[in-house]
């Protein structure tokens, strides 16, 4: 298998996620798109980790970093959904365009 197969899959997933973050208005869907982006990064990390592991079997950094990213993503979703819930309670809407108090 080529390394580029996995890297291109990661790139495609990343760009779809960026499109989702920019094009979606519902805040829960924006968070889902961020999950797509984080998964794209994880594919890259594991692919590079496998590439390193083939030459240096003691080196598992790629996988360890992927695990750290998964842990941070879990924390991010927890706090993010709590924030969305608070915005919903205060404004009865989770439309990203409605949260414009700082706009002059």
């Amino acid at each position: 298998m080529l390394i580029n197969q996995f890297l291109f899959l990661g790139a495609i997933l990343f760009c779809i996620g960026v499109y989702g973050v920019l094009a979606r208005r519902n805040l829960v869907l924006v968070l889902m798109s961020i999950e797509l982006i984080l998964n794209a990064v994880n594919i890259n990390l594991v692919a590079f980790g496998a590439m390193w592991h083939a030459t240096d079997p003691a080196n598992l950094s790629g996988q360890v970093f992927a695990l750290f990213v998964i842990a941070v993503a879990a924390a991010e979703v927890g706090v993010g959904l709590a924030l969305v819930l608070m915005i919903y309670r205060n404004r009865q809407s989770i439309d990203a365009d409605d949260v414009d108090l700082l706009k002059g």
Partner: protein
Amino acid sequence: MLALLVAQNIAFYVIAALIVFGAIRVVTCKNLVHAALWLVLVLGGVAAQYILLAAEFVAITQVLVYLGAIVVLFLFGIMLTRSKTGTDTDLDHTGPKRVGAAIIGLLLFGLMGYALWDQYRDQEFGTLIVQRTAAVSDSIFSTYLLPFEVISVLLLAALIGAIVLARRD
């Protein structure tokens, strides 16, 4: 050996097609709950790709954490914000904003694709060795012990923060 390689490639392209299709549905679907369910397909496909990369522990963690916990959290979020469970036309930006988002996505893909192709071209993995869970844990608890502890504190902080934010006074 060659037969194995062919099988690996076929599996890769089938799963990759599923992932890309699911991801496009996640960002275009008009129904919130369906978007969450398409996300399950994407995350499961990514776990399968980890298996192809011989990273078994990350694949299992992906299934446990993402499919088991994060998707359920999303479904709770959808229900708690009382979003419409049926078709909802109010989920996307319209007109120029959406076109702009698509253009930014395509430009980003062009840039990354060029950089990746320029650097790696048709470099092979060589033989993938299974990366054993015991070796991963040895690596976490020796080389990466400090980041691991920091992650623990971060998770605790996120847990307390989420409770404080979402609690009704």
